[in-house]
């Protein structure tokens, strides 16, 4: 055939990227996967997005009633009743009960074809989902005839001018339990929902796609408040807005260390350091400064409750409770181990959508590393960073360093600015130091500055240089006194 297959954009975030533009138009795509892998949701979203793009749809539900389906997807913000009432969608529940079907002699599934055709005609459908047609195998217990009829059905669908999705259960050692992949030659996608180290991870893979140069990798995906979202690891286009506006770091002297007086709006900053170096305080200072400017801030706290955070920050002169009371600051506290990685994305999305923040703090991102493999965590962070950047949200993440310099370079490539906090030990005293590891697109100080957490906030101390470098703590005090007495 000379003409290449046209694509039908699904409208599902990321799926069109990994399929080079969508599913084969006017063909049938097979979606295979185990129970709870998201097949049905993918099918529903395909239709919902289709309606948004002016393509009405038909959902033939073999497993759920229209009421169950409608209720199940309501939490994703999809109102199937309204779409049906508006003449944009038909949901037809095909009820097959094995014990109620007696067979005597020859038959075919022409009535099912008529049903689907009637539904297509009712709304002028361009998209059809059959979920999960395989239940017919157990209901009719007539494999040979059913295979012949499904073959006929798929070729009939091609003539209906619709782009179709057929869902199927994954088989043992085969893509689908009943070998439907033999009939659907145009596009096959598998979904997987596996639990790894007690963490649930969803993955999607384009197994085959005729006439298309598709990605064969597995991609993580999430189901969140807005539907499915696939994360293509390498194919995201970097086309975020790049603001030249500067926002304060929240610490006056730190602003001065950065050439432009703060971070670019929409940038992502990581504050890393060992335990007890004041990471949360720096992050809170950033949040506090945003609220002072009249902006809205979301603070995702994964180690302490909102009240505890507010109390602790009050001791260093920050009144976070005031911003909470005024509705500018929202502290969302939760334990990361309660949620899988994908749920974390959901939580960030949902909180951002609900609160509409100008700045977001995630304290800390370290806790994500207990939830999955380094790749999973990186992908999660990439997704969060991309999402926040697209919305021009300025973000600060904190990260716990166990060993100096052990920071994962792949994560650092995702972030724009990196502030390191250090414990400086000298003369039986521990002091804290801060330096800027990197600040994209701006000159910055190379100095390590000592700082103190005081009742008035974070105070960076003046640089006092000695013969062996910067002096801190007692050495600084002695030197300062010596200089004063000179």
């Amino acid at each position, binding site marked *: 055939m000379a003409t290449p297959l046209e694509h039908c954009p699904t409208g599902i975030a990321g799926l069109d990227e990994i399929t080079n533009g969508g599913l084969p138009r006017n063909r049938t795509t097979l979606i295979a996967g185990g129970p709870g892998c998201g097949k049905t949701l993918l099918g529903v979203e395909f239709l919902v997005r289709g309606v948004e793009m002016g393509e009405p749809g038909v959902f033939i539900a073999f497993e759920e009633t229209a009421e169950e389906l409608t209720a199940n997807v309501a939490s994703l913000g999809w109102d199937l009743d309204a779409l049906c009432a508006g003449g944009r969608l038909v949901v037809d529940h*095909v009820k097959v009960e094995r014990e109620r079907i007696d067979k005597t002699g020859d038959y075919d*599934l022409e*009535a*099912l074809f*008529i049903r689907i055709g009637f539904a297509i005609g009712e709304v002028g459908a361009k998209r059809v989902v059959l979920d999960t047609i395989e239940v017919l195998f157990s209901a009719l217990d007539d494999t040979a005839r059913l295979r012949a009829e499904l073959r006929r059905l798929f070729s009939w669908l091609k003539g209906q001018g619709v782009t179709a999705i057929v869902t199927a259960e994954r088989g043992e050692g085969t893509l689908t339990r009943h070998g439907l992949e033999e009939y659907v030659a145009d596009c096959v996608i598998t979904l997987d929902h596996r639990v790894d180290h007690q963490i649930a991870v969803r993955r999607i893979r384009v197994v085959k796609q005729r006439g298309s140069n598709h990605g064969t990798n597995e991609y993580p995906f999430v189901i969140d408040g807005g539907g499915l979202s696939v994360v293509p690891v390498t194919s995201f286009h970097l086309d975020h807005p790049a603001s030249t506006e500067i926002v304060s770091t929240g610490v006056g002297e730190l602003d001065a260390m950065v050439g432009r007086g703060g971070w670019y709006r929409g940038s992502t900053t990581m504050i890393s350091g060992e335990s007890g170096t004041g990471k949360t305080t720096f992050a809170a200072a950033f949040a506090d400064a945003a609220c002072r400017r009249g902006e809205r801030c979301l603070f995702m706290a994964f180690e302490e409750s909102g009240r505890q955070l507010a109390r602790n920050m009050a001791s260093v002169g920050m009144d976070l409770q005031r911003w909470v009371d005024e509705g500018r600051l929202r502290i969302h506290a939760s334990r990361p181990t309660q949620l899988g990685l994908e749920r974390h994305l959901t939580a960030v999305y949902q909180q951002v959508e609900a609160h509409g923040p100008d700045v977001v703090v995630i304290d800390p991102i370290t806790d994500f590393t207990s939830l999955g493999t380094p790749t999973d965590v990186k992908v999660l962070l990439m997704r969060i960073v991309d999402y926040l950047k697209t919305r021009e949200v300025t973000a600060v993440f904190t990260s716990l360093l166990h060993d100096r310099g052990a920071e994962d370079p792949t994560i650092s490539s995702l972030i724009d600015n990196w502030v390191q906090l250090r414990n400086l030990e000298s003369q039986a005293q521990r002091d804290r130091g801060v330096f800027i590891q990197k600040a994209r697109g701006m000159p910055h100080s190379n100095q390590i500055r000592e700082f103190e957490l005081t009742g008035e906030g974070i105070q960076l101390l003046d640089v006092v240089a000695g013969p062996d470098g910067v002096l801190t703590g007692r050495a600084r005090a002695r030197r300062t006194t010596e200089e004063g007495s000179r």
Partner: protein
Amino acid sequence: MEVDGDAERWELRLYVAGETPRSVAALANLRRICEEHLAGKYSIDVIDLLERPQLARGEQIIAIPTLERRLPEPVRKIIGDLSNTERVLIGLDIRPSG
């Protein structure tokens, strides 16, 4: 109509899609079985789904031909050309009159 003590009336529907040999055979088989076992107390309504496709959804029909016993309740369905009389009798729950 003569009605016996059980007051049973048999209301049957046969769903077809156009006049196919299979449908014609199913109707012929059904008429024969009814005459033999339900004489005088049955009615057969033939529904062509090509003309009334909405009934396929409303009555949950997927296969052609489908025989539906609407009365007596409960509703029962048998699919196929009804060529096996014994199975039709079992499917319709008709006890052979003896």
